[in-house]
């Protein structure tokens, strides 16, 4: 399945968000996620099913003013 992660197409074998994040190398990271513009809380990632072409945002703490 191909999904758009932070603006780049990525291939994943996992169809739930939590698994895809793990597969893509985000395991153990402090991140927040959104799918197709909707916030997905960490507790819901395991139950959130992805579809081909979904847009996934993976955000982390960053410097800000």
């Amino acid at each position, binding site marked *: 399945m191909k999904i758009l992660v*932070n*603006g780049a197409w990525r291939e994943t074998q996992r169809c739930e968000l939590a698994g895809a994040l793990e597969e*893509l*190398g*985000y395991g153990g*990271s*402090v*991140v*927040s*996620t*959104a799918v197709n*513009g*909707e*916030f997905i*809380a*960490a507790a819901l990632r395991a139950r959130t099913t992805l579809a081909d072409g979904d847009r996934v*945002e*993976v*955000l*982390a*703490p*960053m*410097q*800000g*003013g």
Partner: protein
Amino acid sequence: MLKLYEQTIRSRLMLGTARYPSPAVLADAVRAARAEVVTVSLRRESAGERAGQAFWSLVRELGVRVLPNTAGCHAVKEAVTTAHMAREVFGTTWIKLEVIGEDDTLQPDVFGLVDAARILCAEGFEVFPYTTEDLVVAERLLAAGCRVLMPWGAPIGSGRGLNNLFGLTALRAHFADVPLIIDAGLGVPSHAARALELGFDAVLVNTAVAQARDPVQMAAAFAQAVEAGLAARQAGPIEPRDLATPSTPLIGTAFRG
């Protein structure tokens, strides 16, 4: 002491964490500023670099309170979603709400700002809206549930200081009991001192410190300036007048009469 949404804050200087030459300089600047609150943001994370993880470790080691922002958001939905994501990552209901309306000046879209503030306040967020000095917008933000306002001094990063002194003074006078924090546009410590002298409760500074030749020394200078400004405000400044009044008593002046 300054009270922001039930939290008591002693330092009147808040510091942004962006654009420093290095993480070590940022950490030293935060300490030199004696800041209790720093602003942070959320950005896309690369699984390979994990830059966000290192930054978050640094901030936690500093032991400061974080105020996440929604910088870069141009639409209400973007700002609301970013606020939700920030609350989860940073573990705080504080949010510095920015909805940008114009790219050259980074002027707030005050209409979107009020809409987003209404949504977030209803959801239990403690909103710090980045706004202009407009009194009517301020009224709307307070009606939406905001209990702190962050009017701009000047466009973000411009270093121009308090651009509209009349408007800012009117805002301060009109909302005497609302914590007002000057956010954006300050360039030198005297701008910060002026803001405190005028009765503003605190200032938020980023570029002026981070981009100074010596950010740590500039952070210390801003810390001294806000302390001086606050002390001056509490001491009761004299009113400006148009004509001179002699400070040396005239009684007993030699060669008169």
